[in-house]
């Protein structure tokens, strides 16, 4: 039994599922987005009782979805040359380390934007404050950072 009062898992899914699907589309394209979300939700469910607090659950789901998109992409790449069953990397999805490792190779600006958005769970106004830029510029920076991440995947 958990020690923190976590909301019923499906309440999160019903509240944020649509935006997670949109996020998965940006990262993995229309063709793979639903598979990515399905995998992400199962990973999240496995990790859910081990969460140590109930803060920033939406941002956590974004990170799990991002990691699932990356793993799916890696699995597909491994799949191409052979007919082997892809072995999907099993990140510990509640560990910040997985997401940190993903964004580590990105330029500092992109990394900061992704971190503030998907780990600190800040709105664009909050990100703007922290980076000393306008909210519109913050939105632009996050969007560019997501694109950069996707392009690295495709590379």
């Amino acid at each position, binding site marked *: *039994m*958990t020690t923190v*009062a*976590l*909301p*019923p*898992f*499906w*309440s999160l*899914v*019903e509240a944020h*599922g*649509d*935006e997670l*699907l*949109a996020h998965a589309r940006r990262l993995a394209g229309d063709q793979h987005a*639903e598979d990515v*979300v*399905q995998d992400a*939700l*199962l990973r999240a*469910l*496995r990790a*859910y*009782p081990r969460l140590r607090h109930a803060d920033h659950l939406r941002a956590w789901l974004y990170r799990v979805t991002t990691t699932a998109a990356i793993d799916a992409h890696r699995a597909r790449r491994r799949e191409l040359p052979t007919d082997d069953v892809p072995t999907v990397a099993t990140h510990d999805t509640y560990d910040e380390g997985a997401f940190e490792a993903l964004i580590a190779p990105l330029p500092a600006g992109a990394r900061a934007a992704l971190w503030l958005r998907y780990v600190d769970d800040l709105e664009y106004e909050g990100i703007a404050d922290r980076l000393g830029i306008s909210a519109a510029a913050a939105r632009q920076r996050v969007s560019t950072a997501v694109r950069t991440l996707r392009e690295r995947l495709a590379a």
Partner: protein
Amino acid sequence: MTPLPDSLLEAVASAAVREGLADAVFTRLRTPIGRLLIVQGERGIIRVGFEEEPEDHVLAEVAGRLGPRIVGSDRELALTRDTFDAYFAGEGDPHDLPVDFALVVAPFRRAVLEALHSDVAAGQVVTYGGLAERAGNARAYRAAATACARNPIPIVVPCHRVLPSTGGIGRYGGGPERKRALLELEGSLPTRP
């Protein structure tokens, strides 16, 4: 933004159940007495909510008992849904479904609801005093009434079949109109014109 497709949600829920990741599964069912929220754990139905009860509260109540990994699925609860649908069509009785009394902590209230669940079938009625007696304390009819008023599993545990000895329909957690509708459905009250 568009909500997640049902096929995706159902796929996640079935995988969760298959892998033993779900603490409970819920479904929403349209019925002649309004939408019901039915929540089922491994041992049976633990909670039935009427439509005016906030879903988040009902699910949080179950989460507090069984754990927060609660998923929604019509498919996983198909048998339960079919049993309710058949009941509202005049056949069968949801009280044949397994139940989990985990949300009923007070021992006497639990005894009351267990007696009601095992003894009083569709078409039968019982008084609060009669129910208290079945639960082992004939004088505790007020406690029996409280147990019914707070029944977490209405319809399956048939509190609508408990009537005051003084006549009339008495009270009901879901409101007297629903109680009357259920009793009419079961043929225990003449159908109104």
